[in-house]
Structures are given as structure tokens and as C-alpha cells.
């Protein structure tokens, strides 16, 4: 097990409630407010059965949802299936959405959970396969127009990063992956995962440290205790 939480750091149940915001955070907050207002209008219209509102929400969040799912699953088809499943669940449950959290973080939570569920079920299937007959499915190359050398380098890098991520505890990895998605802040990750901002920061820190140690060869494997807190 690896330590991944910030010890003895003042955090509150409401992300940001006790933190003095910087100018950058205030700008982000105003942008978040604008997005939240638009989403509130779209969700309200969707709850009344407006198909165009559903379509607008789909167009707005499909790309980011795919990015989240792909980073968790590593396969295009699995990511697309997860995104479709997440939208289907969200649209079916939109009548129950009350606006306590933003639609964005609510929906991304659905995407994250769906991705993790598929990932775990894949791991269970892989572990239960007696003959090892699950053939490796190379990622689709349909959309890649680069030279074969570049493509090979990309896949090598992808495999290397994925292998390193496998060694990171799931909780740390989840926060780390979510932050890599463009447009997702610490505050939103805290809402998605229902944790404090301090915890988000801690998990990302230890995930990066682990990743960097693996990529540079300092880490010998997933059982190695790497952090300073644990090594003391």
C-alpha cells in the first residue's frame, strides 16, 4: 500500500471553502459560472423533453468524455462504448438531476465510474482466462496518417505509459488521469470523486512521482515504496 493522502492538512468538506482564491482561480470561477449557467439552461430544456438540448449536451461533452474514457481504457472502441453508455445513463436519469453539483462534474462522474467498471471487468476476465486466449487488440490505426516510424514510437510510448500507470494505485491514478483532461480543474476533480481539493493534490503528486520514477528507471516495480513519507 502506498501513502497518498496529505497528512494533517486543513481541508474542508466544501472544496475551496477555506482557501483564499488567487486571481487565476477567480477567473476560472467566473468561467465556471458561465458554463454552469449554460448547462443549467440546457439541462432544464432537456428535462422538458427538448431534443435539441440533449443534442447540444452531447456535442459539448462527447470529446472530453471520450478523452476520460480513453485514458482509463486505452482502447478506442472501449472508450466509445463507455461514452455511449454514460450518455445513455445520463439522459435517462436527467429528470432526477437537481443541480446540486454541476452537470459537467455529474456527467464526468458517470463517465469515470463507467470507465473504471469496464476496466475492472476486463481485469477480472483477463485473470479468469485459463487459456490466455485473449488476444491483444492493437489500437485502431484508421485515423493515423503519420509515418510507420512515428506510429510505432507513439505505440511504444503509449505502452510504456500504460504499464507505468498500472503500477499506480487506482485512487491516485484516477485523480491523475482526470487532471490530464483539458478543462478539468482540481475543484472539479474533487466534486467528481467526492473528495477534498487537498486530497486531489496529494493523489496527483504521488501519482506523478511514481510515474516519473518508473519512466526513469528509479522504480523497480509496483511493490516498491517510493515516497519520502513511506521511506522514513
Amino acid at each position: 500500500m502506498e501513502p497518498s493522502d496529505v497528512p494533517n492538512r486543513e481541508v474542508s468538506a466544501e472544496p475551496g471553502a477555506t482557501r483564499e482564491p488567487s486571481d487565476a482561480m477567480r477567473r476560472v470561477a467566473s468561467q465556471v459560472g458561465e458554463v454552469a449557467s449554460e448547462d443549467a439552461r440546457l439541462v432544464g430544456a432537456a428535462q422538458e423533453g427538448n431534443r435539441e438540448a440533449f443534442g447540444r449536451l452531447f456535442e459539448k461533452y462527447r470529446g472530453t468524455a471520450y478523452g476520460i474514457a480513453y485514458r482509463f481504457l486505452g482502447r478506442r472502441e472501449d472508450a466509445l462504448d463507455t461514452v455511449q453508455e454514460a450518455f445513455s445513463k445520463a439522459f435517462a436519469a436527467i429528470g432526477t438531476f437537481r443541480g446540486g453539483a454541476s452537470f459537467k462534474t455529474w456527467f464526468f462522474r458517470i463517465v469515470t465510474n463507467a470507465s473504471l467498471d469496464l476496466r475492472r471487468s476486463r481485469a477480472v476476465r483477463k485473470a479468469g482466462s485459463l487459456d490466455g486466449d485473449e488476444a491483444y487488440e492493437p489500437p485502431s490505426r484508421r485515423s493515423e496518417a503519420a509515418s510507420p516510424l512515428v506510429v510505432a514510437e507513439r505505440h511504444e510510448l503509449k505502452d510504456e505509459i500504460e504499464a507505468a500507470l498500472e503500477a499506480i494505485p487506482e485512487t491516485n491514478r484516477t485523480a491523475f488521469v482526470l487532471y490530464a483532461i483539458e478543462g478539468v480543474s482540481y475543484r472539479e476533480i474533487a466534486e467528481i470523486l467526492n473528495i477534498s481539493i487537498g486530497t486531489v493534490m496529494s493523489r496527483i503528486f504521488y501519482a506523478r512521482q511514481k510515474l516519473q520514477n518508473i519512466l526513469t528507471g528509479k522504480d523497480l516495480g509496483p511493490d516498491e515504496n517510493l515516497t519520502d513519507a513511506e521511506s522514513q
Partner: protein
Amino acid sequence: MECSDELKPLLAGFVDGELTTVERQAVEEHVAQCADCRELLDEQRAAAEAYDQYPIEDVGDDDWDVMWASLDAELPEPTKRVDLETLASATTEEETESTEEGDAPAEAADEGDVPQIVPGEQGDAADEVVVSPEAQEPVAETEEKRVVRLPKRRPERPRVFKPLRFRRMRHTLWAHAAGIAACLLVAAMVYLSARPVIRVDDFARDGEVVVGLDFSESQGVAYQVFGGADGEGEIPLVWIVDVTDDGMIIEKGIQ
């Protein structure tokens, strides 16, 4: 700010621009003096940049169109609303046409006797004319139209309010009972939500505590290692809910 386990996670926030002004200044001052933390900061940046290189396969518009078509098929049909004025004028035009064709129905001269369209009570078929019971002149049926005569409506009676003393009293008793139940429920929730705060130091150090977080169990779980430094035996002890300066807020038991 000293070099400590408290500071290190802030390095991630520093890289990502997620610190408050005070925190950022503190980190800047410390990193300027601490080589180890400068190295950690560089590692944080390097890891972030490495992961930014993670290649993601593209998705074409065709794929999104296929997905949307499937989602759209699952959406419920929107409720249709009938424009009553349009429907009324369309029905009147049909009656006029049938009149011009001969075998005209005996339409009354008075406007009040013209077959009235009763909102919400249209005929079952397009070739029916709905006639209100107030129409005096008989409306002859034609080959094209079949007259459907509505049953007479009972005049609306004014609502009579019975003396509600007993009913009001009964409602008041129910309201009181509901209020008491709500208070008890809130009290129970407050009691159950009180969680013991255990200082981190309460756990023995020196390798006897291992903190691990398993997302699949919904939140963090701390394992207390029994058997000394060799790690013999791990028993889930508590469920970490939050971390404060006073320690970890926990709930005991396996979730």
C-alpha cells in the same frame, strides 16, 4: 515553510497553477532554498509533460453521428400540442365543403346553432362532426359526415365546503406527527454523522501503519498492520473520510 510531507503535495498544485496566492509564495520561497524540493518540482513537471504525450486515437464525425443516432432513438418522444384555433377553422372549412356538394345538412341560421367544436372532445374519426348538446336544429347526417352527439353536460355545481373541523384537526395531527418524525430523523442523522476524529499520531508509527486507498471501495481505507515490521497481517480498520489538521475523520468498520 519547512520541507515536510505537508509541503510536497503543494508542488503538484504549484505545477498546475492551483495554489492560492499565499501557498504559491510559500512554495516559491522554500524551493529557492531547498534543492531536494527543486528536484521534486522538476520531477512533477517532467511527469506531467510525459503524460501529456500520451497518444489518443481520433474519433471521426461518422462515429459521433452513429452514436447520436443510437442515443436519439432512446430519447422519449416530445409531447405534441394541438393548436385548437387551427383545428377549429379546419373543421369549419370541411363542413362548408360538404355543404356545397349537395345533401347539405340543415344548418341553422343562427350562429349559436352552428355545430360547435368542443375542445378536447374531437370525433374519433376525421369524418365526424362533433355537435354540442346545445345545438337546437337537427344536423342531418350526410354521406361524408356522421354526426356524433355529445351527452349533455351537467351544470357545474359550486363546490360546497363541508365543515372541516374534524378534517382540519385530523390534518393538524398528521402535520404534527410528520414534524416530530422529521425532527427524530434529523437527530438520528446528526448522531450517526458524528465521526470520531483520530489523530494520525494515534496510530503507531515505525512501519506499523500502512495507509492505502482503494477507490473500488468508494473511499480510503486504512490498514493497520499487525505483527510488527515484517508486515504480518493486514486488517482493514477504518475508512478515511477526510483529513484535517486534527487528524483523519474516519468511520470504523469495513465499508
